[in-house]
């Protein structure tokens, strides 16, 4: 049973929640074989109910201490551009679609999502292009993000302080 996990982070992103649970989006997801939709809505005021999304199993929650489990059990993660969710998802090796909040254009968090997109690690869209992107994106084209190397930092620092 393929599932999609949608996360908005610590604040809210009502437009994304409304858009991803719209009839068109649900239809597109079903056509791709997804039968479960999990929404993390933060403090948002849009809270879709199952009746509004026929044909897909819907689960909605506001926050969880850790969304690691949700990410692990998802086949696709749809996320806001926050660095934490992006890195956590890619770190778990899951396909990621980042939906940019048009209302936050100057937000520096976009820098990271944009860079990860340039390097081919994620797909990228806005709410208005979400349905189209769901239909056309190629998840197999995404490149895995190699883990960072804290060990390199340790050696660098050892040299800087004169330990080696």
């Amino acid at each position, binding site marked *: 049973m393929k599932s999609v996990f949608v996360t908005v982070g610590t604040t809210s992103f009502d437009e994304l929640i409304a858009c991803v649970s719209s009839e068109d989006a649900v239809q597109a997801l079903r056509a791709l074989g997804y039968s479960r939709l999990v929404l993390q809505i933060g403090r948002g005021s849009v809270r879709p109910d199952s009746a509004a999304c026929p044909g897909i199993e819907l689960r909605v929650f506001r926050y969880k201490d850790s969304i690691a489990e949700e990410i692990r059990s998802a086949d696709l993660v749809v996320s806001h551009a926050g660095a934490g969710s992006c*890195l956590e998802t890619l770190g778990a090796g899951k396909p990621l679609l980042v939906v940019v909040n048009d209302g936050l254009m100057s937000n*520096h*968090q976009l*820098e990271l999502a944009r*860079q990860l997109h340039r390097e081919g690690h994620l797909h990228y869209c806005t709410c208005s292009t979400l349905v189209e992107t769901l239909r056309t994106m190629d998840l197999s084209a995404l490149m895995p993000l190699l883990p960072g190397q*804290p060990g390199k*930092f340790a050696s*660098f620092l050892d040299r*800087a*302080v004169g330990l080696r």
Partner: protein
Amino acid sequence: MLRLLESLSQAYVPRHYIIADTDKMSEDKIRFLEASRREKDGEQKFTIHRIPRSREVQQSWSSSVLTTLHSLVYSMPLVFKLRPDLVLCNGPGTCVPLCVSALLLGVLGVKKVLIVYVESICRVETLSLSGKILYHLSDYFLVQWLSLQEKYPKSVYIGRTV
């Protein structure tokens, strides 16, 4: 930052963690990290200190100056008491007054403190406000992306470390 600390050898001891007073998450994470280090390296000294946050996200420049000064009043005695060999920081506003205090230790001839700044992975094209200030004050300034290193020649890029 904690992921970087995890990779450091046990030569870096004692470890003094300084976090903003409004920070709810970090203390638990620090204690968790130290507990796992204790299993590996045995008992090592660490302390946790709190100082007023010098700048909240989105806070304006002018009021940031005031809150940073306020934070400096707390940082200065703390840094003079701890007299670290190394200050390691990763960008929240709280590290600016700490680095200024550490720099002052050197200027006053008390102790030369090595200041190492690691810019956030979120910064690909521009430096954070703390980064812009500490670019000039740090001994080593590490960035996570090559594109940023090219813009700031004094910075160091050794690959993505987080």
